């Protein structure tokens, strides 16, 4: 199979003026969502009407009202305040669980994809071992040995997560380095480091960034699942996934306990995905 239509460099040459003006509205919307969220997450006390941990036995399982816009749970805790305070923990999960895997995986993937040969073989075996090892066994094992809590959850997620970035980047770099412009770089006497990190990586990083944004949303979900199994955030701290798990028994009688944290996860995920798509567009046009 031949591919005669391959261009000199796979970057668009169509000129586009006014960076801000051509940013899609959806991207701006994503920035807006996440910006608001970050603000809430940094100053939850300012936004929350109640102490998220305070019990009120005189107001348990109250439906949404003026006093409690999101209602109360079975301990009389204000669901709105808990959703707000949970944003701090959930954003932390989104960032801390993914940033190390993203950075490490991307760099490693770029090097492996460029060097190839024996490095690629070894890398392939390690990746296989990590990916084929059942994730839940690893998480339960790590959390059981180190104790439950978010930091140990980050460790467990980080031990596995880098592989995804590394594989995506390695595959892209492998394709890129066969293109003419990489040869041109070598002909011009650029160092390997420069070729990899200044030329190949920027051209290959887009799918990894797009995946990263999804991964942050996935990390929140994973945190929820692990919280459901008791391996994530520890009570009484509010975390959206834990809140949903707490509200599961009340789906028929007090839907507000689980629905509002669910909406919070959806909105946050939307923010990340809009941002990710926007960034992808941006990175493609900038070069």
């Amino acid at each position, binding site marked *: 199979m031949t591919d005669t239509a391959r261009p000199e460099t796979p970057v668009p040459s169509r000129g586009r003026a006014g960076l801000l003006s051509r940013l899609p509205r959806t991207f701006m919307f994503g920035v807006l969502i996440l910006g608001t969220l970050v603000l809430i997450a940094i100053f939850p006390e300012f936004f929350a009407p109640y102490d998220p941990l305070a019990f009120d036995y005189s107001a348990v399982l109250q439906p949404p009202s003026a006093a409690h816009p999101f209602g109360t749970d079975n301990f009389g805790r204000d669901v709105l305040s808990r959703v707000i305070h949970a944003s701090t923990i959930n954003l932390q999960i989104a960032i801390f669980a993914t940033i190390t895997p993203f950075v490490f995986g991307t760099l490693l993937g770029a090097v492996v994809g460029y060097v190839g040969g024996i490095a690629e073989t070894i890398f392939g075996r390690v990746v296989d071992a990590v990916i084929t090892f059942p994730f839940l066994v690893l998480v339960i094992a790590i959390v059981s040995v180190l104790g439950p809590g978010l930091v140990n959850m980050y460790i467990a997620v980080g031990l596995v997560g880098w592989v995804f970035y590394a594989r995506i980047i390695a*595959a892209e770099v492998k394709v890129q380095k066969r293109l003419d412009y990489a040869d041109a770089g070598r002909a011009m006497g650029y160092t390997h480091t420069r070729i990899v990190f200044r030329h190949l990586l920027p051209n290959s990083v887009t799918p990894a960034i797009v995946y990263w944004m999804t991964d942050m949303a996935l990390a929140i979900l994973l945190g929820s699942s692990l919280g459901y199994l008791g391996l994530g955030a520890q009570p009484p701290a509010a975390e959206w996934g834990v809140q949903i798990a707490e509200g599961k028994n009340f789906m028929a009688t007090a839907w507000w306990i689980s629905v509002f944290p*669910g909406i919070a996860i959806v909105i946050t995920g939307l923010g990340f995905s809009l941002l*990710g798509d926007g960034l992808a567009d941006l990175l493609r046009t900038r070069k």
Partner: protein
Amino acid sequence: MPEFIARRLLQLIPTLIFILVVVFALVRLLPGDPASAILGDRAIDADVERINRELGLDKPIPVQFWVFVKSFATGNLGNSITLKLPVSQLIADRLPITMLLTFMAAVISLLMAVPLAFVAALKRDRPPDSIIRGGFQVGLSMPVFYVGLILLTIFGAKLRWFPVGGYGDGFLDHVYHLFLPAVTLALSLSAILMRNLRAAIIGVLDADYVSFAQSKGLATRLILYRHILRNALISTLALFGLSIGTLLGGAVITETVFAIPGAGRLMVDSIYGRDYPVVQGLTVALAVLVSVTFLLTDLLQAWLDPRMTK
């Protein structure tokens, strides 16, 4: 190509040995032992010691490892501590259920993701795109146990289109029972695939060579097939292969919610029950399964992009 496959199968051996050693060590690093897990609060020292002796867990770790390797080499995976059944039989009973579930989920996610990704990419930033992305985002953001319950309530209990959990008898009945769980499991994967595919298609559309092709007067349909699909699918396939492991892992909660007696549930029960032989055997079986899936996606990728095998 046969050489490529043979090489890949050979590469599997060191991976499996590594996994074998890690899982053996890991399960024994876990606090507690099978006796504690089984007896719980009724555990009396004498009983715990007797059970550990019966299981050979009172022997030094290297001796245990040797026993394990010896029996493993002869194809004997041992007996489950809690279920008193051969591990090989348990795997043969439970793993196909999870495989079918995962396969159905994979097919459903592709069926959802591929056409919609095309629509979203071609109508970029217009209402169809926003609706598709928003819809997938909602699916992606909902915890599996929650989505599962909602689907069961609506399509199971209310509309009676599908059974409320269970696995059924016979292949067609299994497929029928596994449909809702497969949709549940497919939601997050299809969202990831859709996003990636959409980004890839946009990337190809933006690249100049499509304009080149257009200027040469090729039919639009052909451009789509020849260039976009092939190029976009390459990265999607990589992602798809990678996701199989996650999908199998995600089966745990799905299987619990839908009361499916699959390998995911067996794995979690066995970890909590410190059923070392089952955790070991099942981990290796899952590793083989995931590796074979990788191989298949790689072969497909190689077929789409012959440079990958070099």
